[in-house]
């Protein structure tokens, strides 16, 4: 069983085409693994019937010789994606009972490519969080542990279920979404690879919105090649999303030559944070050396507005969230609060939203409401949008100076314990996104590649940031880094 579920997408694709394995066998192996992994809290709506049906259809397609790369490949889908006839709750109580009658563009494209949906994956409520602890389904748990210590660790967030499921070999790959680091941070915490594409590369249609100018879907998989294969199917222009780019989608897998000779890699000095753990600093230095050894030219660069990225994000994201989440009012879908005699429509809204949204979502909706309210709009929201322009310009300047990609740590630490941040104020949790959030603000592609382990054996990731629309080049640099780092460790099964 483990051999099947542990396959990469690329190796499974080749085995399926050669007839060495069927999609039905692969799918069954994943369903069994999922049933045995309830302790991870990764899969929150299991869809075995759909999976078996799609596997059978994929096997027929494979037999007929009409098989795209993902045909027959079992995937997990983050709960943020609407998939026809399957509950989509964004891990929130307020969407309890909501069953979308439509399919998001990204999952439709995956479905048309023959991919098999195994189920919906856990996440932070409305993708707001960095530890998967704000989910109405309960925590997702990291398959990795600190040596023999049985303390449960976070798989990161918000795509925590996706990360845990891929790392624990419950599926071959998973979809994630990334608004401030929600693909890359969990990927780093679980020793997998996660790519946030350029803003506009994947359609947002049918994905429950958090912050529309920052949200972007992307692949989470076992290696760089698998991310490229998944992105090939996920990307593309969609008239249903007016911000989706009308650009041709190149073959991202074909870009993986591993040759980065002559490429220029920037190391931004502002990412060297006070109090950064030595292990992270050492990993970053090693990554630099690996890319140099692979023939890249590594230069120090400056992204002077980095320091202001998090505060900018914590104005813009809540502002957009407060607007996007206004639709959850107990009228059209999801849960409505029990009303008392004489309650009017305003009481219905207020009670529904008070009991439907968790604490972090309420906090962000209210912060967003505040920064958009009369008298504060210019001081906070407009100012943040101006600083965002400056943050993007920092990157544009670096790229104009000839930098092809930027290397940074993916996270400021390894995975932390579930509950460990409970007493900290919300801002402490926000610091998790310090290296990733700039990328969303600038709309750039970014990828997290597992590159080492800390003293407790926990995985650590490095992030590469690329030029807009050049995911192929970015994936190739990541591929070179992956080959040099040679990260092959797997969590020991305890669940």
């Amino acid at each position, binding site marked *: 069983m483990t051999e099947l579920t542990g396959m990469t997408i690329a190796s499974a694709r080749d085995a399926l085409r050669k007839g060495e394995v069927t999609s039905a066998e692969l799918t069954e192996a994943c369903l069994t693994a999922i049933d045995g992994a309830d302790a991870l809290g990764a899969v929150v709506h299991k869809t075995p019937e759909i999976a078996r049906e799609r596997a059978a259809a994929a096997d027929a397609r494979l037999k007929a010789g009409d098989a795209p790369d993902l045909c027959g490949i079992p995937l997990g889908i983050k709960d943020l994606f609407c998939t026809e006839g399957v509950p989509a709750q964004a891990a929130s109580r307020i969407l309890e009972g909501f069953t979308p009658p439509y399919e998001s563009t990204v999952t439709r494209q995956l479905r048309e490519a023959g991919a098999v949906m195994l189920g919906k994956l856990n996440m932070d409520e409305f993708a707001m969080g960095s530890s998967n602890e704000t989910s109405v389904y309960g925590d997702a748990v990291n398959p990795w542990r600190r040596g023999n210590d049985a303390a449960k660790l976070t798989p990161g967030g918000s795509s925590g279920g996706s990360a845990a499921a891929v790392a624990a070999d419950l599926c071959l790959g998973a979809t994630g979404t990334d608004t401030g680091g929600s693909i890359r941070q969990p990927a780093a915490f679980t020793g997998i690879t996660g790519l946030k594409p350029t803003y506009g590369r994947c359609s947002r249609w049918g994905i429950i919105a958090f912050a529309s100018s920052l949200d972007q879907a992307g692949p989470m998989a076992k290696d760089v090649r698998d991310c490229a294969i998944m992105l090939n199917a996920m990307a593309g222009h969609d008239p249903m999303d007016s911000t989706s780019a*009308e650009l041709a989608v190149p073959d991202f897998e074909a870009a993986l030559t591993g040759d980065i000779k002559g490429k220029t890699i920037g190391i931004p000095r502002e990412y060297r944070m006070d109090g950064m753990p030595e292990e992270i600093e050492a990993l970053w230095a090693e990554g630099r050396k690996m890319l140099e050894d692979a023939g890249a030219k590594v230069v120090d660069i400056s992204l002077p507005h980095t320091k*202001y990225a998090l505060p900018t994000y914590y104005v813009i994201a809540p502002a957009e969230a407060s607007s996007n989440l206004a639709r959850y009012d107990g009228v059209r879908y999801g849960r*409505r609060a029990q009303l008392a005699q004489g309650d009017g429509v305003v009481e219905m809204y207020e009670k529904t939203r008070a009991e439907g949204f968790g604490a972090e979502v309420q906090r962000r909706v209210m912060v967003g409401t505040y*920064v958009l*309210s009369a008298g504060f709009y210019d001081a906070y929201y407009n100012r943040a949008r101006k600083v965002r322009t400056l943050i993007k310009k920092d990157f544009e300047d670096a790229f104009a100076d000839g930098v092809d990609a930027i290397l940074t740590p993916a996270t400021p630490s390894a995975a932390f314990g579930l509950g460990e941040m409970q007493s900290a104020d919300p*801002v402490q949790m926000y610091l998790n996104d310090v290296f990733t959030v700039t990328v969303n603000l600038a709309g750039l592609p970014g990828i997290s590649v597992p590159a080492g382990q800390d003293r407790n054996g926990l995985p650590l990731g490095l992030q590469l940031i690329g030029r807009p629309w050049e995911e192929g080049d970015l994936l190739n640099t990541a591929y070179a880094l992956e080959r040099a780092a040679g990260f092959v460790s797997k969590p020991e099964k305890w669940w």
Partner: protein
Amino acid sequence: MSIDTATAARVAKLARIRVDDDALPALAEEFGAILGFIEQLQEVDVEGVEPMVSVTPMRLPRRADEVTSGGMADTILSNAPDAREGFFAVPKVVE
């Protein structure tokens, strides 16, 4: 930055989220911490900088003004907590 409980109550009201009176001081304190963090933006020189409208330079596409979808009231109402006779139902709003 300190936020008083009256401001916290006003924001909760605007956001249409019921917050009990005894929860207001803690909420005000949390707002204070977050807004204090955001306050750093005041030190950035943004003179003459355009606020970002779109992260990728693009013109919002337009399409022909014609009906492309519809005629599925039942499907749309299927997720409503309360729907009657082809309408969403809510508590009485007009006496």
